[in-house]
């Protein structure tokens, strides 16, 4: 029997890997995806019955930070995924093949798994001037995306660029860059935004596709609810200071040193939906707010163009009604008042923009 006709359970048993490994793998995924841990045995059983998933990864106008981030996933590790559960048939940065051989690998994978392969895209796609601004092997990204998407079971857009255009689409958007779902409309698409996304969010979405055979439930921006239903602010460890009206006023004042809330320094936590506050980056080492800098809201569409990173939400263009409502809500009259008062201070930091 050919290797890819075996179930993962059979394939791994041949290598002497027991079901305990499946259980453990699923426990890690359930943990990061907030799937009830009581479902772990069922997940493990279903994963063992699955067959190796063909994955084709297309990189367009991107900076490779998404793949850099992905390779640092720890639960599950990306090597665990690649060696045991998926067949990564095409990925510029990771594959050994280059040039003609790489393109052949792509077309073979598309041929063999038509209708069944999963496409991952990072980077935006330029539309202006027939898309000439980014080409691979003589084909524009637009042609390439349409060709690969046609035979895909589903598409996962990785990173804010592939989801919403990202930095490529920032004003004045010289290449007419857009995200995948503005081009492909007849396939299931999940958006995993972030600049870069959290590695475990990327591997978690892949694993949930493997174990449940379908893409996870998503919000109105097609983001998986498991990771994007809470705001950074909801889960932030500095939240108690916000509720007490204790704010850092500059990056080196006493409040900053005491780890107080960064709202007045421009933190976009209250309107940014992402899981950084619980999953963190680099194997749980840290995340922007823990390092003393406010959230930029990088998982939200057009975050580059929404005013200064250093202006408080109540003073900026970020759906300002929402921002102000949040500031007023938590009974922090004190906080809201000081937010307005420190406006001058913010203007100083952001050069008055």
């Amino acid at each position, binding site marked *: 029997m050919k290797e890819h006709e075996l179930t993962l359970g059979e394939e791994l048993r041949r290598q002497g890997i027991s079901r305990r490994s499946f259980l*453990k793998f699923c*426990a890690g995924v359930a*943990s990061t995806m907030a799937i009830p841990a009581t479902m772990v045995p069922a997940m493990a059983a279903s994963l063992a019955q699955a067959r190796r998933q063909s994955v084709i990864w297309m990189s367009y106008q991107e900076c490779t930070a998404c793949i850099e981030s992905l390779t640092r996933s720890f639960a599950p590790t990306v090597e*665990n995924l690649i060696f045991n559960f998926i067949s990564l048939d095409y990925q510029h940065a990771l594959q050994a093949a280059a040039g003609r051989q790489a393109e052949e690998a792509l077309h073979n994978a598309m041929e063999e798994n038509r209708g069944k392969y999963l496409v991952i895209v990072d980077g935006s796609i330029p539309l202006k001037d027939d898309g000439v601004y980014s080409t691979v092997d003589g084909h524009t990204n637009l042609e390439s995306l349409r060709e690969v998407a046609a035979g895909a079971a589903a598409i996962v857009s990785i990173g804010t660029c592939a989801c919403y255009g990202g930095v490529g689409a920032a004003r004045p958007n010289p290449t007419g860059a857009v995200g995948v779902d503005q081009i492909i409309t007849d396939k299931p698409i999940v958006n995993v935004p972030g600049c870069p996304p959290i590695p475990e969010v990327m591997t978690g979405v892949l694993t949930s596709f493997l174990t449940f055979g379908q893409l996870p439930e998503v919000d109105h921006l097609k983001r998986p609810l498991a990771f994007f239903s809470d705001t950074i602010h909801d889960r932030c460890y500095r939240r*108690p200071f916000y509720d007490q009206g204790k704010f850092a006023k500059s990056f080196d004042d006493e409040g900053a040193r005491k*780890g107080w809330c960064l709202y007045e320094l421009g933190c976009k936590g209250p309107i940014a939906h992402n899981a950084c506050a619980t999953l963190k980056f680099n194997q749980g080492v840290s995340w922007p707010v823990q390092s003393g800098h406010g959230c930029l809201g990088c998982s939200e569409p057009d975050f580059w163009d929404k005013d200064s990173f250093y202006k408080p939400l109540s003073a900026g263009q970020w759906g300002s009604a929402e921002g102000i409502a949040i500031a007023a809500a938590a009974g922090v009259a004190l906080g809201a008042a000081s937010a307005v008062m420190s406006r001058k201070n913010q203007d100083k930091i952001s050069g008055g923009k």
Partner: protein
Amino acid sequence: MSLKDIPVHFDSGPGPAGSEPTGMAEALLREVADHLLTVAQGGERQVVELGNLPLSEGDLRLLEERLGRGEVEAKISASGLTEVYETAFHGVWWVKYFDNGDRPAAQQLEIGTVPMILEAHPEDIQASAERFSQLFEEPVRNSH
């Protein structure tokens, strides 16, 4: 290279993984108490995921202290290490999963007769039953 290799350290600031308990441990203990009652009355195994809760170092330490250590501890080598021990409360198990590089990957409290990672899976038992008969067919072969 790890963080320890960087010759810089914090000398102030509470830090997020701060050492102060936040009250989260107390809340968790109540949840565990509930689960333990469920299981004691014949209910299904319950699992509390610790990984996605905003627990401080202090919370975890407090939780470990309050739960104590019981009679059983075990190490499982399957895709890296997993450590399991029974707390001072029978049926309340602490399960720590590590990845291949021995970095912590997930952490759970499992409430039940035995943690699922310790049980042998029926399919594995079946495979080993088939393999076992080879012991009689080739009695002199070196184990491999």
